[in-house]
């Protein structure tokens, strides 16, 4: 184990961070992270404070303990603070999968925005293919950019069903890209992701972080 503060200190930062984020108090959240950065390296601030805080907030939403507006504001505040306290162009993770995100034949952007801000705040870089993309568009873009993990967020059921077309077109192009889906329809039917042949489904925004980690682990990254 590298040199670190006692676990309890990280626990205090996490507690303060969660309280600040849920009460939408950016100033307090920023103070907490600034304090943490005097004790930790940037990657440690992310791994030991931000990631666990966001995970607990994301998880809280699935249990009706945290609301979506709090989830959204937490992601937004973290992204803004990180921008303020991290040196410009500083890459937190030296090595990472090539990740992209999009909404598929759907104009609802909030899910994508939240997932993106949670991933950014956790140090991941994500290419954003925007909204309302067709299956064909997404497949050409991911192949051209050599994307390894494609995150798809949808809100409408017919849009969710289009994921199957993305998979079919990928197969036709022999592209082995991991598809991770999320958004309301997948939460109302836990078999839907299998039906549309996605590899993973996330129930809540922080699942994006956990799923990417487990893909990284499975690839020995």
């Amino acid at each position, binding site marked *: 184990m590298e040199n670190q503060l006692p676990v309890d200190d990280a626990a205090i930062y996490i507690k303060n961070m969660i309280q600040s984020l849920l009460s939408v108090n950016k100033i307090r959240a920023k103070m907490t992270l600034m304090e943490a950065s005097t004790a930790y390296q940037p990657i440690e601030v992310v791994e030991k404070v931000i990631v666990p805080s966001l995970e607990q907030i994301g998880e809280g939403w699935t249990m009706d303990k945290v609301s979506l507006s709090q989830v959204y504001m937490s992601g937004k505040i973290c992204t803004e603070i990180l921008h303020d306290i991290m040196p410009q162009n500083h890459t937190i993770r030296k090595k990472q999968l090539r990740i992209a995100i999009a909404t598929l034949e759907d104009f609802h*952007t909030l899910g994508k925005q939240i997932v993106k801000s949670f991933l950014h705040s956790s140090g991941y870089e994500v290419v954003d293919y925007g909204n309302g993309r067709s299956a064909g568009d997404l497949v050409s873009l991911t192949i051209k950019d050599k994307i390894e993990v494609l995150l798809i967020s949808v809100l409408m059921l017919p849009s969710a069903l289009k994921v199957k077309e993305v998979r079919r077109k990928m197969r036709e192009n022999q592209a082995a890209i991991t598809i991770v889906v999320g958004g309301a329809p997948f939460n109302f039917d836990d078999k839907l992701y299998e039906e549309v042949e996605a590899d993973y489904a996330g129930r809540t925004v922080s699942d994006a972080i956990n799923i990417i980690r487990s893909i990284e682990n499975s690839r020995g990254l």
Partner: protein
Amino acid sequence: MMSMTPMQRILTTLGHKEPDRVPVFLLFTMHGAKELGMSVKEYFSRAENVAEGQVRVCRKFSNDCVYGFFYAPIEIEAWGGEVIFRDDGPPNSGMPFIKKFEDIRRLVPPEVGQSKCLLKALDAQRMMKEKVRDDIPIIGTVMSPFSIPVMQMGFDKYIELIYEHKELFEHLMRINEDFCVQWANAQLDAGCTAVCYFDPVSSTTIIDKELYLKTGHNIAKRTLSKIKGPTATHFAAGRCYSIIEDVMQTGTSVIGVSVLEDIEKIKNDCKGRTTVMGNLNGIEMKRWTQEDTTRIVKDIIAKAGKGGGFILSDNHGEIPFQVPDDVLHTIVDAAHEWGRYPLQWLK
């Protein structure tokens, strides 16, 4: 017991008494288009199509209401916004028309009497009323003043408005309340029996209780008190258990319950006071077998049916386009068989 008309059945259940059987609201929006062999866009382009299609699906499935709902973004169309149609699902709102927070100050609500799309919907409701008279209730719908801004300005900007621009938020609510009341009352005048007030942003899925009490709750109290007919509050599959007492205080007659909730607990809290409607999972429904369907219908009736004050329905207020007729027939058959009052099979 003699068989009742749907209207008698609904009035009895709303009075917290047991009618002849559990009433069923299959809330169709697009199945009428299928029935008439039309695309969704063509269907909603004429009042005659919608009146004919909605009444036909109502009769086909012995439904206990005719749904007078077009689609949520029809209100956005009335405000001058964009609606995007697709063939395999409901239309969605396009680019938000409130681009900057300051635009809110210049916003003028549409006049229902001047709006082509709303007049078309009112015409359709009038025709529905001519077809079914007082036998079957016709349900109108409004988006709540608190929920419609998601389509007016985008969800992200709206959340920021609520937290960070309180004065402009209040201003927008007053404008939206005026429009909502006007639109709801026009539907009642056109022949709707009741108005469904869609308010999912008030759900604890979207905002916490503390914020709800400061916002959506007061807005609903003010708005519902000005609507001149019975209202049902629907959270469109969002959760509401922890705010149930507060929702009842808004004066609503019915609450639409999500499949994410325990309908038994909600029914117990609402017993004798507010009718509970729900909570079939519309998204999952398209792949239900006959056994699944019957089991699920029985389970909901067992949890919430006793004593009336209950309407069997999907949990969102709309049956997805993909749900096949077989499943819908099975829901109705199961409700007719297992929902016959008194629910003796439960003893």
